């Protein structure tokens, strides 16, 4: 067995969205599998405690995600919606963009190609 490495960094974007709310970006590096739950939820808690209403997941440095990882994103999305926040992602490779379409997450999560496009779309 090989070790799986995952790190997440939470950044607060200096701008705000169309409604004047804070934008937080979670930079993901490594693999998202079932072992990622605590790290992902901790990062989300940090973003929320900073007052963010817009949560952006940066998948640029994602190496691998399995079906358990997709399940984690669904549970995160439900938490985000219950807090009346909004979840978006950017930096997905073609493969994982297709996985978002196959699993129909793209119907509930906005997908942008990169950070600048996401920030522009959110109105900052």
């Amino acid at each position, binding site marked *: *067995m*090989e*070790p799986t490495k995952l790190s997440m960094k939470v950044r607060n974007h200096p701008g705000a969205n169309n409604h004047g709310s804070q934008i937080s970006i979670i930079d993901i590096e490594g693999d998202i599998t079932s072992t990622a739950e605590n790290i992902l939820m901790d990062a989300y808690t940090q973003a929320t405690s*900073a007052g963010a209403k817009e949560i952006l997941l940066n998948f640029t440095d994602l190496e691998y995600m399995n*079906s358990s990882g997709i399940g984690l994103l669904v*549970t995160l999305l439900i938490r985000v919606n219950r807090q009346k926040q909004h979840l978006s992602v950017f930096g997905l490779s073609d493969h994982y963009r297709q996985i978002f379409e196959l*699993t129909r997450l793209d119907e509930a999560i906005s997908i942008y190609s990169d950070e600048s496009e996401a920030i522009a779309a959110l109105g900052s």
Partner: protein
Amino acid sequence: MTEQSNTATADDSLPTKVSGTKDPRQAAWAEPIEHIKVREVPEGATNLNVDGRQPASPLQGFGQMWQKTFRVRLSGIDLSPAEVMAIWMGNFQKFQPPENTFYPSMAGIKPGEVLLIQAKVPPLPGLPSFLPVSTGVMVLYADDTTMTVMTPEGHPEAGWNTFSVSEEDGTLVAQCQSLCRPSDPIYEVFNRFLGASSQQDRIWTHVLVSLADHFGVQGQVTMAKVLVDPKVQWKHARNIWQNAAIRTMVYLVGSPFRWVRRMGNRKPES
């Protein structure tokens, strides 16, 4: 700008299956599709309520979203998680309860393949299971130790079931985990008030007990339920039009008429 970091290192088995020149870890996923295509119908199966349907995630269902995790420890087995998983997938039907028949395609349980299902459900709690439901699932993801199926629209549940084997503290653990919502208001009523949820729980418990029995282990199945989303999604109430149970009943009621029509269309032998 604030910046904080969390880092974790954990053991996680990696998929090793290779399909052509594709990255083996990407090959564990089904190819992108918009609608499920049933390429072959195994003998005894009915291709109903699956072909042409879109796969449905928990986000497209109607009812409350639950995550249910069933686990059994397979103590004393001298096999790897991948070896146990291979045996599990090779005997997938054998480990099901009698009222649940899975029909894997000839290709077996591989990403993108469809498993047709003939199930029988009780009309009310306490009554025997005799109402037929024809449905199926698509293999969304399969590697050496994990397999996830995704339901089509109209299936009783919208979402995913993941089957996996891992090693914890030197002991193998087999797990079934579902992340689903009832697909429509009828299924939601059956789930909440008429025992459908308990029946589903019994199915996965039966599967894990059967798996443990196969290895000669006295398996004690544990179950953990988490209500991920207590809200129903009224925007998906119209899923009722694709309800596989209703459509199966309509199909069966119409069977004699289809048989008579086929007889009438036959050309007389000269």
